[in-house]
């Protein structure tokens, strides 16, 4: 019992409270409060019961009616925009695996021009999408978490986008937009493999890794778009020498990604490209298979958590990106690079976390 309650329960002075006769104890009405009803039947009980039941039935009915309407979604949801029609949401009824995005409501007079962010969010049935000729706006998050998507083809007449063997680019091939999450399944089939192989599977070899888990970006690419390679089953990526920007979450949770090469006129080097300027936030987060990272001197900006969780401790040894190799000297790096919070990975150290060491002024590994 709290002190306050004790105070409330304290004897009350007779000037403020009237004496309550025992005979009126069950019927005494306190001023400003309702009268007690004890041992008496409720007035108009029948009517009141009917009202309560009616209110409940109506409330439950309305709730179910509106809820049922609210949670229902059409397979395709479109909105009209200034330039045409936008696909805002696709809800797979369960049997659609291939989709062509050319017009709204099957009406060729309503050309589809935009695909909204998260339009296919978490779909696990779609395997192939074909982008129609009129589509000119695709958000970097449009194909987010389309788990079984193998290919995104683009109508050759489309003036804004194109595809390179099922991988989505802008028309000028300067920006890679989306490497479908399950693109390796497409490459596997193309290379004649019947099933998915893992490093500890029988038959897994370099040929498989090269055919299915390796990707070369075209030489013209300058930007790896946001989320472009997230969740990709790749072990090796060849970046072009002219790459300037790796946007946010570009290689997020590409957990098998082991090696990043840059290929150009000067041959192949094991590093991010020398002309790279920006590494976005979470660009390589959770890529624990990476075992070497070299930041070239050209880098001017690194987003927060860019290499988050790319290392881990196993058997007392730090694995993954255990040391960050940086081309610039420490003073120069700190003066010229806008580095976000926690851009370096950290690992378990006793009961806390410890950030990995940085090797400033490092030479690139061969």
């Amino acid at each position, binding site marked *: 019992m709290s002190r306050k309650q004790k105070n409330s329960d304290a004897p009350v002075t007779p000037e403020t409270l009237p004496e309550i006769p025992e005979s009126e104890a069950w019927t005494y009405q306190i001023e400003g409060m309702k009268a007690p009803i004890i041992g008496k039947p409720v007035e108009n009980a029948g009517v009141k019961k009917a009202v309560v039941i009616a209110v409940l039935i109506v409330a439950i009915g309305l*709730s179910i009616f509106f809820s049922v309407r609210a949670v229902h979604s059409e397979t395709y949801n479109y909105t009209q925009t200034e330039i045409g029609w936008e696909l805002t949401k696709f809800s797979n009824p369960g049997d659609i695996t291939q989709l062509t995005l050319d017009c709204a409501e099957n009406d060729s007079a309503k050309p589809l021009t935009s695909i909204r962010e998260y339009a296919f969010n978490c779909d696990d049935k779609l395997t192939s999408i074909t982008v129609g000729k009129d589509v000119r706006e695709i958000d970097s998050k449009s194909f987010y978490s389309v788990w079984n998507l193998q290919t995104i083809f683009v109508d050759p007449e489309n003036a804004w986008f194109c595809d390179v063997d099922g991988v989505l680019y802008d028309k000028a091939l300067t920006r890679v937009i989306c490497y479908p999450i399950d693109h390796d399944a497409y490459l596997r089939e193309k290379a004649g493999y019947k099933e998915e192989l893992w490093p500890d599977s029988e038959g897994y070899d370099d040929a498989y890794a090269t055919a299915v888990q390796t990707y070369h970006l075209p030489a013209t690419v300058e930007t790896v778009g946001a989320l472009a390679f997230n969740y990709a089953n790749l072990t090796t990526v060849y970046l072009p020498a002219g790459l300037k920007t790796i946007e*946010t979450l570009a290689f997020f949770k590409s957990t098998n990604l082991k090696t990043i090469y840059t290929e150009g006129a000067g041959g192949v080097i094991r590093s991010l490209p020398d002309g790279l300027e920006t590494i976005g936030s979470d660009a390589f987060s959770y890529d624990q298979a990476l075992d070497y990272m070299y930041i070239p001197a050209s880098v001017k900006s690194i987003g927060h958590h860019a290499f988050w969780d790319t290392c881990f401790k196993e058997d007392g040894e730090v694995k993954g990106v255990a040391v960050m190799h940086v081309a610039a000297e420490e003073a120069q790096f700190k003066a010229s690079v806008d580095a976000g919070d*926690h851009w370096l990975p950290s690992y378990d150290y006793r009961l806390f976390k410890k950030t990995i060491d940085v090797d400033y002024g490092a030479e690139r590994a061969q």
Partner: protein
Amino acid sequence: MANIKEKIGTFYHEVRDHWKEPAEGKYVPYREYKDIFLAVGCNYSGNKTLEYLGFWASCYLMMYHYKLPYLTFSVINIINMPLNYIWTMMTWYIADNLGFMPKKNERKFYGVYMLLTVVGIALIVFDPSQLFNQSGRFVTYMNSLEGISCSSAFKILGTHLLWNGWSGARNIFWRKKLIPKYGRYKYSLYCNAIPKCITVILIGWLPFYNIPDVVTRVWVANLMFAIYSLFPFDNSLEMCAQNISPNVRERIWVRTIPIKLSHFLNSIISILMPVFIGMLRYEWADINLFKYIIPGFFTFCVAVTMIFAGRIKERIPQPPIERKVTISFWDGMFGVMRNKYKWVNTIVGLLDSLGNGMLPFATILYLYTFRLSGLIYSLLVALVSFAGTPPDFFSPYFLKRFSYKQIMIFYQLSRALGNAAIVLSLLFLGDRVNLCGTVCVLVLIFMEMTKTIPTTAGHDMDIRINDYQMYLSGERLENFSGVFGWFTGPITSFVGLIIPLMLLRYGFNSNWDVLFVDASRFKIIVIPIIIDIVGYVLMTIPYLSWDYDDRKQNMVMEVLKARERATHGSLDGTEAPAEPAESEVVS
């Protein structure tokens, strides 16, 4: 100094002399304090450990492994909502009668429950959706629901029937068999502890999360967690210990010392557990959390609970069933509906539901903004929750200085203000993770500190509301307060869809990684918080009509005392008039 030494010495002798036998006028020997400390502490900690496991979106098992669509949880609620009204009424009847009913009624109840069980199993095993036209509107509509198909909707309904049927029958059976032996509070532990341990272990080890089809994963997870929740491991020993003695002063003493201290065991576990989790390779996303760490901690808690539970005695005499006051359903219902203050609380609760469906902001902050794990996570969580303790010492002053109305209005406004500060920090400092996170944690600490006194006030208000109910109806009718939920339930179910539908639009579905996308995380956190702020501001309005002041409370107490005198002739030797009636203590 000498005085303190003397007091310690006296206390030592007191404890030593009455270690096994209680002092005169008391009922609980000090040895039982030790048992209460360990048993209640482990019961409470085990119960808290289970908060990591549940069929809800923010459970880490759902988040990282089952990956169920967020909206599906709301859809399942809607499927189950109408039938819940029937089960509630049946459960009230059984709980109020401690499971003892006339034979005829008992047979009827068993019959209904068994029928439900059979129908439930049939709906799960067979596929009634095949009876419908597969291209018809009904099947098409059901198939369009997020994470659900027509076939799985019947299985979900079947699970609901099976759960209610089986748990209802079990409830009658165990209450009847075990209450006479173990008492009304402890019996539940004896029939549920072992099956609960088994289900906790199975949940981690059964690889249902690998089922590729999301629709199947949904109904299987729903069924699995339904079976898991058949065996509650509630904090029943604390309830038992709170009512351990007929001596009211001794009860307060037990509540204050061993029970309060026992909660430290949970504090230790809630610091230790994240440290162990931090050692896992994938931390919160590591399946070993559910295979080893949670079952390990839980089983330990259950074992200690069960060892010491038997040594705690229930000493409140149970009145014979035939002397229990029985109130008709409609009398109870109309009785509580006359209580203006219950309506105030109901409207406040209704407005609070505007925030239903919101993601746990603090979890998102810790895991996705701060990326915390291990000891640092534990310490920060402990720091925030501890922030509420110091203001507790000032509760008496504030409760005396300010009215309940003022305190509750301040509380809602402080929550609105705190949330507004969080929105502003996310808006202007979002890119600077450390600074933004620090501001948010400071705000959380502020909100925790401003919560303590209103929480105490809220408890006092609830007691007063029930005193007032006693004045109005002659009974506290605590169970019947549930009828307000009948009216608000349909509204809150619908309102609870608003935020999940908005989150779906902002990209939040079954993949929580979307919270790593800065722009999306901002919308997913901020928009629901803004809705919540509106709710908090609106929640001040009902409190404006709160006019139940000290004078009215004193008057009510006077009336209750007068009734007590009229009944017993004297108040001497009787329980305080504000104590709940036996029939209502039960549930």
